[in-house]
């Protein structure tokens, strides 16, 4: 089992004729992803290898039945590409593009929220009401935007939607009783490093989700943690955070209140100077102690999260938690 994406997921690639888009579309297909089509305005009717290309997402979705899209459109046009996917009814949108203006993302988030609210309203109208406490209502209408500025989503052995190297992942633990680990991260290569350490220890991954390094991501840690908590294929969750904002602290509070599965954490940026942007647009410490690695680590620990002491010991920390079987 997994979250967000699996064998059945039918995937489009927006910006498939660009250099990054075509390279990674092929890499995803070769990994085994069910890549059913691409979109580049003006290139409709052509093919990338045997993958059909369409002018609009709407047409691509109608002809291929795709429910997911991976976006490689350049930053100035990426927000519009996300909106196009949303209005075409795509339910899982993975935006790889880096450098999107943050206020564009604010607008995109407002649009997605409005779309979901409208979709729920229509169901209420059609059915003449919802059952009280209907737990499936959000799942039926949810539009996931993962990213931007992220490596994407991979369910090892089934579906890769993104730029991560497929072969470093492990789809089943060497010892099946160990169970698998779900990963959620704000980083790219740090995630690969952590995945690699787990794979080397024979610990499989259920799904790995990179939510991206931007200040306003489409999806945050908590929403992904909730999915992992529900997923029977996930035994424990690894959260890779970094300086800036308060998403890690909020995730730790969510873990303490709502999760039964163990959570392991790592925070990058203990040596980062305040006020400077460390590569990721979101990685900046803004005044005082808020957003520092030290502050985040201490909150994580106080909420019962097992924090890896160094980036070299992420895998070992996960292994220890799995062996002990409990929280923290």
């Amino acid at each position, binding site marked *: 089992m997994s979250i967000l994406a699996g064998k059945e997921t039918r995937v489009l690639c927006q910006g498939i004729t660009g250099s990054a888009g075509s390279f990674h579309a092929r890499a995803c297909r070769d990994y085994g992803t069910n890549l059913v089509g691409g979109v580049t305005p003006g290139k409709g009717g052509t093919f990338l290898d045997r993958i059909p290309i369409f002018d609009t997402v709407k047409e691509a979705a109608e002809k291929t039945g795709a429910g997911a899209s991976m976006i490689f459109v350049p930053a100035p046009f990426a927000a519009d590409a996300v909106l196009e996917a949303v209005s075409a009814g795509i339910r899982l949108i993975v935006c790889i593009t880096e450098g999107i*203006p943050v206020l564009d993302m604010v*607008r995109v988030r407002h649009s997605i929220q409005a779309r979901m609210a409208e979709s729920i309203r229509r169901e209420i109208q059609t059915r003449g009401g919802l059952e009280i406490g209907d737990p499936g209502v959000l799942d039926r209408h949810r539009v996931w935007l993962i990213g931007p500025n992220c490596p994407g989503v991979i369910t090892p052995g089934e579906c890769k939607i993104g730029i991560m190297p497929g072969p470093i992942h492990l789809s089943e633990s060497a010892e099946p009783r160990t169970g698998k680990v779900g990963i959620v991260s704000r*980083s790219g*290569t740090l995630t690969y490093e952590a995945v*690699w350490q787990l794979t080397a220890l024979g610990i499989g991954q259920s799904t790995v989700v990179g939510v991206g390094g931007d200040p306003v991501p489409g999806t945050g840690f908590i929403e992904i943690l909730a999915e992992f908590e529900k997923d029977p294929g996930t035994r424990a969750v690894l959260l890779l955070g970094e300086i800036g904002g308060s998403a890690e602290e909020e995730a730790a509070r969510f873990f303490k209140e709502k999760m039964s599965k163990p959570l392991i954490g790592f925070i*990058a940026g203990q*040596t980062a100077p305040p006020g400077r*942007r460390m590569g990721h647009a979101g990685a900046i410490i803004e005044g005082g102690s808020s957003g520092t690695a030290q502050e985040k680590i201490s909150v994580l620990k106080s909420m019962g999260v097992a924090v890896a002491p*160094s980036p070299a010991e992420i895998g070992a920390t996960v292994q220890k938690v799995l062996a002990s079987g409990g929280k923290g």
Partner: protein
Amino acid sequence: MVSRPGDIPRVLKKAGAGPWVLKAQVLTGGRGKAGGIRVVRASSQMKKNLLEMLGMTLVTAQTGPEGVPVRQVLLEKPMEPARELYFSVALDRRLGCALLIASSEGGVEIETLARNSPEKILKMEIGPSGALEDNQARELLFRLGLYDSDQKKSRERAQFFKNCVRAFFALDASLLEINPLALTAKGGLVCLDAKVTVDDNALFRHPELARYEKAACLSPAEKEAKAAGISYIPLSGDIGCMVNGAGLAMATMDLLKQHGGDPANFLDVGGGANVEQVTRAFKIILSDKNVKAVFVNIFGGIMRCDVIAEGVVSAAKVVKLSVPLVVRLEGNRKEEGAAILSKSGLDITSVGDLSLAAARAVELSRNHGRTP
């Protein structure tokens, strides 16, 4: 505004009689306490003060010991505000929207006020329209004590706040802060100091802001990094770092620190760590004369380790590397990569284990005595 000593006679002639307030135009806060704001009463003293300020390096609580050079000075009429308020629009990361923050108590550290009397701080979310709605502007006036029975005055004040929110969106700002915002004796609103932070990612649609970017005065190494698309931040340590990916780069610096070392920089060489990019990164790192060792930590994912190793070797030859180099390559085809490094005949230590590699880099940085 005065930018050059040569401008002074013309500006003074136009300005007329004092008193005047001279304000150093620098991209930092805390100017007043550091001598960046002066009230000059006698016209005869204007030239002297302007000349002093134009050349000075302003060291404030926010600049660090190196300070910032003053390149422009603004002249303003002094004013005695009837009241000082606080106003800002900022991107709220948690809410994922723009948030208006205001207080009827301005001129102070807003963080201190937020801590000690949070009830005095007013917050309003700006909705999907990207504008301050009429009802929000009205509420703002009531809460700040700015509502006036003179409808014209109230309308003008509401429009002022609506314009500020419009400016925030029009500029792609992540912060627009006016502190203090003065209410004059005549009932008008005047910005006495303002800070605007613009989103780097949105600069492509603001060519008009390019001239302010120059004022940020980057070092040659920082300029070179920017041109190469490399994220580089110089720090005070002595171990140069080259890593692919921002998160891994931060984690690598942390690891060096844990082993007792001190990173000389943050450097994310980017996704495609090819020969050209690695060569430019080496040049940038080595332009820092404090660097006593270089630590390269690259996770070969899509890019194979053997390709990266060849890049590192040829780059090290091009820049005639004079300090010890520790390379840790992990991932796809790492054995082949390590073999290329060891056969290169260069002073390269190749270590596979991340923790051991960091320890080795720290050790070599200590042993390496560069001739003065």
